[in-house]
């Protein structure tokens, strides 16, 4: 489980996060949603340590990550997998080398074992016979799946996904969502997904945290978000006429 307790973060004179607290449970797909510029990405970067928090604590299974020195953080980071918005695959490495990279850096596996593990992860995300391609030679959806394969290569306890559906067609988006949900349950990971995609919110949101004006404005699950009367959540999630109609139909049975 990941807990954030009373986190605040400023850049210069601009305060982005105000006393944010939330719990992200193991074995669940936890979503962080909110409009652009409200602090979702900053919150995630604070959780993974790319930004230092000004105050508050980030706890990974009761281990205070924010109070750790770099060397100790390194141990926790080996338990983290992250899927970036732009996939962040290494341009100069092939698909197979990308997935093997964390294994090569942090395990004592032989090269054959690394290849076997990388192939297993690639097959798990349905990437077959693409080992020798460079990331630039694959499609956007494939790059996301390769990045997921790299993220799960080390058998992480925590998985972070930064807008995994951005730039993808609806069918591929659903496929990526399902994949994230499946591997979360399969490996019993603590998964945190930042998303704008309302389909993801309704489909895979076991626990949803709505960030607004740098605060934890609302939290609940995908059933509760359908029936909430929180004005800001309704304005954000049900912004389109279609979604408003859908909500009314659900509420009215």
């Amino acid at each position, binding site marked *: 489980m990941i807990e954030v307790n009373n986190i605040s973060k400023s850049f210069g004179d601009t305060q982005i996060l105000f006393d944010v607290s939330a719990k992200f449970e193991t074995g669940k797909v936890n979503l962080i949603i909110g409009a652009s510029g409200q602090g979702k990405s900053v919150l995630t970067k604070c959780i993974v340590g790319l930004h230092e928090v000004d105050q508050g604590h980030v706890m990974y299974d009761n281990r205070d990550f924010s109070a750790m020195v770099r060397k100790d953080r390194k141990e926790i*980071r080996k338990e983290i997998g992250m899927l970036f918005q732009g996939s962040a695959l290494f341009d100069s490495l092939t698909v197979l080398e990308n997935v093997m990279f964390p294994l090569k850096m942090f395990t004592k596996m032989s090269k054959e074992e690394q290849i076997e593990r990388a192939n297993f992860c690639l097959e798990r995300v349905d990437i077959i016979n693409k080992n020798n391609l460079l990331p630039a030679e694959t499609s956007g959806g494939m790059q996301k799946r390769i990045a997921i394969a790299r993220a799960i290569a080390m058998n992480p306890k925590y998985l972070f996904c930064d807008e995994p559906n951005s730039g993808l067609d609806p069918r591929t988006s659903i496929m990526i969502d399902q994949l994230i949900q499946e591997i979360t349950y399969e490996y019993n990971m603590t998964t945190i997904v930042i998303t704008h995609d309302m389909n993801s919110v309704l489909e895979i949101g076991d626990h949803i945290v709505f960030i607004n004006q740098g605060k934890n404005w609302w939290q609940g699950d995908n059933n509760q978000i359908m029936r909430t009367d929180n004005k800001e959540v309704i304005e954000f999630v049900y912004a389109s006429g279609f979604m408003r109609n859908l909500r009314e139909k659900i509420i009215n049975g």
Partner: protein
Amino acid sequence: MSFFEHIGRFFIMLKSVFSKPDRSKVFWERFFNETVTIVINSIPLIAFLSFFMGGVITIQTASNMESPLLPAYTIGYITRQSTILEFSPTIISLIIAGKVGSNIASEIGTMRVTEQIDALEIMGVNSIGYLMLPKILSTTLFFPFVIVISMVLSLIGGWFAGVTSNLYSTETYLLGLRYFWEKDSSGLYYALGKTMVFGFLITSISSYYGYYTKGGSLEVGRSSTNAVVASSVAILLANYVLTQLVLV
């Protein structure tokens, strides 16, 4: 950001550069790859430039020597001294700063804006050490060998230009090249020493500008330009300081 803040951040970065690599096997693999990419792949350009640079030095020297009291072998002597002391180490370093410096800054800068560096950090990799140490070490250690090749080709270029223009015979040119060599040979060590300093400056400064790129593709281009400008200025300043310290 002020000049002094850049200097401070540069030295803090160097501390991370020279920390122990996460995996020595991966480090050596990258070290040899970078040696090929940065050093070996620069040899054709350097060879071409050096040959013609040597030819031009010879012709320029010969055309400016009007006194009949100066023997013809002086041309060879001057070509040797200018090539070894300044043209090969300094001019070639400036050209390498343009070629390699922009390449390094744009490579690392692109990794920064596409979150590849964040991905390294999240995995627990010391991204500064992983990306920069192989580049800096391979250039600092092997750049002098490239400069030796440049010196040799420059002197061959000087011979070719002089002999084909009937400025002197091969024997006269060789006599000039050997003249006062016992006394002047220490200049070679000075040149190779400063080449190591230039190699370090080019890769570390370019890596610095690439690593701290913020924004998108426009900023990557800007970092690349800044890296070349800053490396060139640093080379010229270091050249002046080293010349003062060693030769004066």
